[in-house]
């Protein structure tokens, strides 16, 4: 069965410190992996994706994520957090073999304190 898990409901980090938001996945075929961000009262905004190629992918606003096939993980990272990064972050997965299915994790609230 296809699924994606975000084990942390909330992540707190001080401005300027590195941040990591965790995500693990489970699919039957090759995964397409995504991160989205949601600011209050807004829609879901695409950040980055992994489909093939380099395991480290870079996206918007200085975010990056590393695909780890052996650990079935796709953690979101940023070297230096900003207060404006505070938002809700969703990991998502799409199965190459079941392309119509697109599932989100439960979301992680990132709080960056000044």
């Amino acid at each position: 069965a296809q699924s994606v898990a975000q084990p942390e409901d909330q992540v707190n980090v001080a401005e300027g410190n590195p941040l990591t938001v965790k995500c693990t996945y489970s699919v039957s075929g090759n995964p397409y992996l995504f991160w989205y961000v949601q600011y209050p009262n807004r829609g879901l905004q695409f950040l980055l994706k992994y489909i093939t190629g380099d395991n480290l992918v870079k996206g918007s606003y200085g975010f990056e994520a590393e695909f780890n096939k052996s650990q079935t993980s796709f953690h979101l990272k940023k070297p230096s957090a900003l207060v404006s990064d505070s938002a809700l972050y969703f990991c998502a997965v799409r199965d190459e073999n079941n392309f119509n299915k697109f599932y989100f994790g439960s979301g992680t609230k990132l709080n960056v304190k000044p």
Partner: protein
Amino acid sequence: EPEVTQTPSHQVTQMGQEVILRCVPISNHLYFYWYRQILGQKVEFLVSFYNNEISEKSEIFDDQFSVERPDGSNFTLKIRSTKLEDSAMYFCASSPGKGAIGTGELFFGEGSRLTVL
């Protein structure tokens, strides 16, 4: 830049009334979705639509829900008889086919907030 548009942005309705939420996906996209989100919580899958038919639906998408793509551009979600628990933000999304440029990610509208009183 092409975008997914949704109307209305906010609708207030009485319990038991029918509601239609409208979406205009990005043209030449092939996959269409409705999701809902209650009060900034998790994003719940409702239904996916491909090749003019429902390809997948969740247990939330019961007989009270239906989707249509009547004219090749609009993609609508109808709730036949709304309940209090249908109050949520409803998001429409679309994506190109596999292998197309920009493949993979879903493009989301800004959402339609439904309030059932």
